[in-house]
């Protein structure tokens, strides 16, 4: 569903993402983890087609994201850490607009259902400026899910959510994965990643340190500690980083 081969992103001579490859199959949830400046957000934005990669092949549902972006983008949804909404469109106008862009014929019942599920049913005519941060995030989620994407990216999906919202978000992610979506989650919250991700990819300084199932990663870095949690594994994996490129001291971008 998501095939990434040799993804590279350069800023001048600085390598924000350096030759990263991985695959996410339908139903899998990949947790993208790494310290600040590891290249997580940059990778996600490349995978979403927001910024052009400097190198590599990115395939979404079989479509090359660089050569055939329109076909590839039809299948994906990206939820950044800050909800990005047009401040002049109401809640319902956002959904109408997105329905036209993604050609979701007969979207009204689905849109109504999403708004009800996300407790936005009574705020259809509200502008984003009249919504709380959590509500804005819910609206962004409703817009992203309206076209039933097969590939979904989340960048820090729990930011700004209350405990009920967190629980619902986790359930929603797992429900989408069970429905056959390929999901990538970038987060610093290792307990979230451990709880809902089937696979882990650890990035550091733009490079892949490890990837595989949680068990595989645990086996690789747990040093014979069978009960080591992801936090311990993460620290071990990132404690001895791969050799730094000469220009890595330059300030990093993204997360």
């Amino acid at each position, binding site marked *: 569903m998501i095939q990434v081969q040799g993804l590279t992103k350069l800023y001048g001579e600085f390598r924000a993402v350096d030759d990263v490859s991985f695959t996410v199959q339908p139903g899998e949830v990949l947790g993208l983890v790494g310290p600040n400046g590891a290249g997580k957000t940059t990778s996600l934005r490349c995978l979403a087609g927001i910024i052009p990669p400097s190198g590599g092949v990115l395939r979404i549902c079989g479509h090359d994201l660089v050569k055939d972006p329109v076909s590839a983008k039809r299948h994906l949804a990206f939820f950044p850490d800050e909800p990005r909404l047009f401040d002049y*469109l109401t809640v319902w106008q956002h959904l109408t607009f997105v329905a*036209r862009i993604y*050609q979701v014929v007969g979207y009204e019942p689905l849109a109504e259902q999403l708004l009800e599920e996300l407790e936005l049913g009574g705020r259809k005519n509200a502008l984003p400026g009249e919504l709380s941060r959590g509500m804005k995030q819910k609206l962004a989620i409703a817009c992203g899910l309206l076209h039933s994407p097969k590939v979904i990216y989340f960048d820090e999906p729990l930011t700004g959510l209350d405990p009920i919202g967190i629980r619902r978000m986790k359930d929603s992610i797992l429900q989408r994965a069970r429905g056959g979506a390929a999901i990538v989650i970038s987060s610093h919250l290792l307990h979230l990643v451990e709880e809902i991700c089937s696979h882990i990819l650890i990035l550091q300084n733009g490079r892949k340190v490890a990837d595989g199932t949680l068990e595989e990663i645990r086996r690789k870095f747990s040093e014979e500690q069978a009960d080591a949690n992801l936090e311990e594994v993460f620290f071990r994996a990132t404690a001895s980083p791969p050799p730094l490129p000469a220009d890595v001291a330059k300030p990093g971008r993204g997360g």
Partner: protein
Amino acid sequence: MFSALFYLQYHSVKNRTVSRLKRLKQPKYLAGAIVGGLYFSYYFVRPFMMPGQGVQALPVARLPGDPEWVELIAAAALAVIALAAWVLPNRRTVLAFTEAEVAFLFPAPISRRGLIHYKLVRSQAAILFTVLLLTLITHRWGGRAWIQMAGWWLMLSTLNLHLLGASFARTMLLDRGISNWQRRVGVLGAVGLVLVAAVWWVRQALPPLTAPDFADLDRVKSYVSSVANSTPAIVLLFPFRLVVGPYLAGDALGFLRALPGAMGVLLAHYAWVVKSNVAFEEASAEASRKLAEKVAAIRSGNWQAAGGKAKAGRSPFHLSPAGPAPTAFFWKNLISANRGITFRTWVIIAAVVLGVAVGMGNIGGGRTLPVVAGAIAAMLAVWSVLLGTQIVRQDFRQDLDYLDVLKLFPVAPWQVAFGQLLAPAVILTGVQWLLLAVAAVLVPQTPNFPWRWPAVLSAALSLAMVLPALNFISLVIPNAAVLLFPAWLQAGKEGPQGIETTGQRLIAFLGQFLAFLVALIPAALAFGAVFFLARLAAVWWVATPLAALAATAVLAIEAAFGIYWLGWLFQRFDISSELNP
């Protein structure tokens, strides 16, 4: 504690200046700085260096020769501003701090008085800059620069303190249960009493003005002067006259004579402000947030959002989920453009304007008003082709902060570009057609106008044909500039400022103008060729629409290429390198 605030202010100014100087290493800022510097030096500094050179003073801008009248008018203007500070506002005290200042200073162990002092020192930076600008402007009409600078500083500083003190007083009155309307009635009542007393006073000394007196300007001036010099008005205007005194002093001695009075008023205001103990923090925190949003909205060209509480716009038409994607962008941007104004409102406005024009046309017969109105409408139509794009900005310029969202959509880049330009193009075309219709109805009322109705209709129709394509071309240029040089037009709170930005805007506008002229050349050639051929077989008012049709076809092809190019620019636009949101 004050040293910490001074440290903050000093280093803020210093770092901002250093960072602006550093960015001059980039050619785009350097070019902007050179052009901006030349512009300012030509218009403002040159008259200092070379008196009599530069732009000639406008006669209307010359101050009246009678110093007494100048003093009276200046004092009255200050009085009106001061009065407005007591009457108009309905909010509590609002000291505008930045969001960062609210976050760092409000929770810090700094007294309220300390915050006020900090605010006063900060406001001095803006006042000094304004003083410099005002002196550059006013000095063009003569006088001593240092006197003008000091005079402006005294006036602006006193006014600043008065506005702040008045806001404190308003808050205190509200806290004591005196509503805004009670305060307004009280203030206006007191001022009205003084004015009535002044008029009564004068009527005791002078005969009242009669109808014929109004035809005699000297008589009116004499009467007003008498009112102004009556005891009640003298009392009312006395502090304001003191404040404007130093600015109006003709020489150093006069300035020194006027200075103590003005300084006295200034120091009294300072004491009033710092002695006030009003809780302004909550209102200021809220105002700072709103101010930040407003600044961001203005810099992104979203004037409606900057104007106050945003209103949800009605959908201009039903957007079905199936159909071309550009329509969705058109629909979205029309909503943005029409917040608070519906499509029906526009239709009503257009109908009323046309109705008035037709009515004026019927009373025509060489009367001045219809002709002037028609000429203005024609000029506005022409003017809007180039400058209208600077006003109607519901395109990439409005959505510069949303480019990451637009890039997510599964829509071909040229379709995004076309959709983004549709709304401003349609709005501009609608307005221009209306203006054209008004001009076509009214301009022929000019005495001895040479054209008959078929000719007028032909010219109007020809212009109406070329306008949509012209608007698209005109819109492609600034939108391409946004995608090519986003740093020059970047929206958001940290948008560019300074002399180099003025220069960049001048360069951008000149570039747009030149590109527009170049785009017109092929269309003009097509127009000329078809007109020449058509004239062999038809009268000019038949040939003109045919030639306009050919020109429109050429312009449409150019616009299509432009839109495709704009889409290509949008596709290759690397948000992370340019905007880094």
